[in-house]
């Protein structure tokens, strides 16, 4: 599904990603761990098409297409979804309108008709409930005044509505208490399917107790410095990142 080859990325004149390789297939869950400032969010942003990053080398193919050539909204419509580390607050735009506009944009791109208003409401209410969110959130402005945990849940709600193929979760676990973490993890697990892949960026082993990854990668200083199975996360928990950076 996703092939990242030798990716180098600059922000301004500073090189942040320094030759990153990663391959993700449908049905897989990849965890990307690494110290602060390693470039994890940079990778997430580059995948989702945020401006301000200069790709100086390498390639990203997604479903055999050149991902880097697609504008952000086309990537989203083609099934790339980023759950933001810091979700944006948008005053005056209701959650429900964003969800509907987004869902219809994705549907239209895929040759489907606009969602029926009643069907949409039924669907969105069910998903909201599944994430243990009050329906009132639907009619509030996007993320405005939401707590950290509510924002993260809201990201998962959007993901559940759009049913993307490639889900990138950037530190979705940070700032969540244990109950919220479980709810979010359940939300993610409910979306697991053989057609869908996940890249979970995280700092801690914690989330991986609930969502078991197939692969764990360590991103340090702009590169994947080590890859392994789920057991690597436990090792990292124990030893930290220092031993890898020195290697």
């Amino acid at each position, binding site marked *: 599904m996703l092939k990242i080859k030798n990716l180098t990325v600059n922000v301004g004149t500073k090189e942040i990603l320094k030759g990153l390789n990663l391959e993700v297939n449908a049905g897989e869950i990849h965890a990307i761990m690494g110290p602060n400032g390693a470039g994890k969010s940079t990778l997430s942003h580059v995948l989702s098409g945020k401006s301000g990053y200069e790709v100086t080398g390498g390639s990203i193919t997604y479903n055999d297409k050149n991902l880097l050539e697609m504008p952000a*909204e086309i990537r989203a419509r083609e099934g790339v979804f980023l759950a933001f580390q810091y979700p944006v607050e948008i005053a005056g*735009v209701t959650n429900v309108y964003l969800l509907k*506009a987004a869902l219809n944009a994705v549907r239209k791109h895929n040759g489907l008709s606009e969602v029926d208003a009643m069907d949409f409401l039924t669907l969105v209410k069910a998903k909201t409930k599944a994430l243990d969110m009050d329906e009132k959130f639907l009619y509030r402005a996007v993320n405005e005044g939401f707590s950290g945990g509510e924002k993260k849940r809201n990201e998962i709600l959007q993901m559940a509505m759009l049913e993307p193929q490639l889900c990138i979760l950037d530190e979705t676990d940070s700032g969540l208490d244990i109950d919220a973490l479980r709810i979010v993890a359940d939300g993610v697990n409910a979306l697991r399917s053989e057609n869908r892949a996940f890249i979970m960026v995280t700092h801690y082993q914690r989330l991986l107790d609930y969502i078991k990854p197939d692969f764990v990668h360590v991103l340090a200083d702009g590169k994947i410095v080590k890859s392994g199975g789920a057991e690597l996360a436990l090792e990292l928990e124990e030893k930290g990142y220092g031993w890898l950076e020195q290697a």
Partner: protein
Amino acid sequence: MSISWLDDFRQQAQSQFEQTGFPSNRLEDWRYTNVSAIAKKEFPLAKIENSPVFEGSKGGTAFHFVLVDGFFNAGLSNLPKSITVCSINDALKNHAGLLQSKFNQAITQTHGFIDFNTANFTDGLFIHIAENEVLDKPLQIIHVATQEAILPTRHVVILEKNAKATLIETFSSSEGNAYLTNSVAEIFVGENADLTLYKVQQESETAYHFGGTYVQQADNARFTHHNFALGSVLARSDIVCDLATAAECELNGLYLGSQKQHLDNFTRINHLQPNGISREFYKGILTDQAKGVFQGRIVVAENAQKIDSKMNNRNLLLSNEAEIDTKPQLEIYADDVKCAHGVTVGQLDEKSIFYLQSRGIDEATAKHILTFAFANEMVDKITVPSLRESVFNLLLARFPEGAER
């Protein structure tokens, strides 16, 4: 019909106008707005004739007062029976004493547009709401312009003690019509009376507009104004409120300029006595080569203690060539007051645009959504549902897919 007291006003105003003409932008209050194009047009004065009235001139509200090219049209109108309401020309006959006692009394400072209006107004609305009377449904004043002319209208609105009313004033015209609206309203809000006034200016893109609203607020009187400046190539709006003890004034505004539009919003709140409250909130959205002006002045007189006043002006510039001149001013002569003002000028937030794009929404629609949301804060303040819906739809036409229909 010649009425001597009015003729005196008219003659005096006429000679004043002959000296000054329309305001020069050498005047401080007009420095951002050059109206010289209007004089060059040499519009004639509107004539009463059977103008064709296009669809849309009939208001969505139960009560409406229709002015076609500045002349009251009784056939198109539907007036409430419970209060005194008629054309100013009828009031000159039937309510002469009351009219004479109020005429020109709300205007404390004049300029060329007001002088021209006093000298030439053709008609307008007269409304008198007696003590404790409440007009329970809004009355809509509908201006329709069909002639290429100057359309001067004059309103006199009087609310006695404890009276209450909502007025809506809309300005529209057939497409492409070039003319000058020159509308002056004198408003007297009596003790503890309450008036809400909505103005929706959606003149044609070749029209010129001057609208002046001059308000005298007695003790504890409340005045709320919502100003939507959407149309015309050059528009100037004046709102001047004089507040007595514990009077409250709320001014809200939204100006939406595109192409070469120039939209000037001049407001002045005079706290003349203590304990008054004023709230002013204006938002502007300017795109293409449009230019906006916000001049908000709040004056607190020397003996007007315990005034609580807030003014805020927020602007969104959507193109490099769009421009805003914003000048909030506090002039405070009392020492025990709470006054604050703030101004912002900015662009759409890049992070928000990307957030929407990352959900599959294209950039143009994302911008419409964010712009709509910015503007809609002012639309949401409209408490008359049919009006809120129609202004909402006007906005949606400007920013398609900016919100759910």
